[in-house]
């Protein structure tokens, strides 16, 4: 386990940027900034004609670290502790579960809670609890 430092100011600021992005997307396209919904709809079946816009949003997500490196000359710390088998299983569960539950941290946690959606509150409480339980089992039951 790698120790990380408590960063309330940077996290609050970064969170505000995420919120700003969600507000801008609603202003521009009238849609929820839910990353799982946006990413999942890059694959068939296609139900509307928003493919290019979704691809552009995802490209923006991927380009962010490149912009940071261009501006600051370095990338912030990123530690991925999970091994390949765990990454494969975790990816499958994350992809399947977020689509099955109609949203992830952004769609339910940020946009849904901001709309005072009961469904999103239930979803957010559930994935928080499941995430905490999983980390507890992995780190403290062995």
């Amino acid at each position: 386990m790698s120790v990380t430092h408590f960063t309330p100011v940077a996290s609050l600021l970064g969170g505000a940027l995420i919120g700003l992005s969600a507000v801008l997307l609603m202003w521009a396209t009238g849609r929820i900034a839910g990353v799982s919904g946006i990413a999942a709809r890059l694959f068939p079946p296609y139900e509307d004609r928003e493919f290019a816009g979704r691809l552009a949003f995802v490209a923006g997500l991927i380009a962010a670290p490149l912009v940071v490196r261009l501006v600051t000359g370095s990338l912030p710390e990123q530690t991925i502790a999970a091994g390949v088998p765990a990454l494969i299983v975790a990816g499958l569960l994350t992809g399947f579960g977020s689509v099955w539950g109609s949203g992830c941290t952004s769609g339910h946690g940020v946009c849904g809670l901001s709309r005072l959606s009961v469904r999103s509150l239930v979803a957010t409480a559930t994935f928080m609890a499941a995430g905490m339980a999983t980390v507890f089992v992995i780190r403290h039951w062995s």
Partner: protein
Amino acid sequence: MAILVQFAIGLVFGLGLIVSGMANPAKVLNFLDVGGIPAGTWDASLAFVMAGAVAVTFVGFNRVLKRARPFFAARFYVPTRTDIDPRIVAGPAIFGIGWGMAGFCPGPALTALGFGSASAFIFVATMCAGMVLARFIAHLPSLTRYATPADPLET
């Protein structure tokens, strides 16, 4: 123009993930690790990410949704469902397990691609497979009575 704007909006989202620390799975896992509270390794930062994001979104949505229509679209696509069905619990429960295993949720995983790590590529590849599988199962005729309506972004 609309495409370029959506790229910029995705970029702001990604910058937010990086600045906030959410693009670092170790930080996410240390937040989820409530068992680390006694040892002092718990990292409460993620709560501040959520607080900042929800505060801005709450105020911003209220203002934006007062407009007649979005800038580039004919109408708003705001989810309207209020029912608590099995999927709204089962899906997040499955997602939460994956999140706790690797420390990645979909947004940070995509942003991690830009860091160039092989681990992120593996995670995103199987995440996309999981997404396609979930949509395929939800669209099976025998399951459509459990499936959500085809309305876009039915959060």
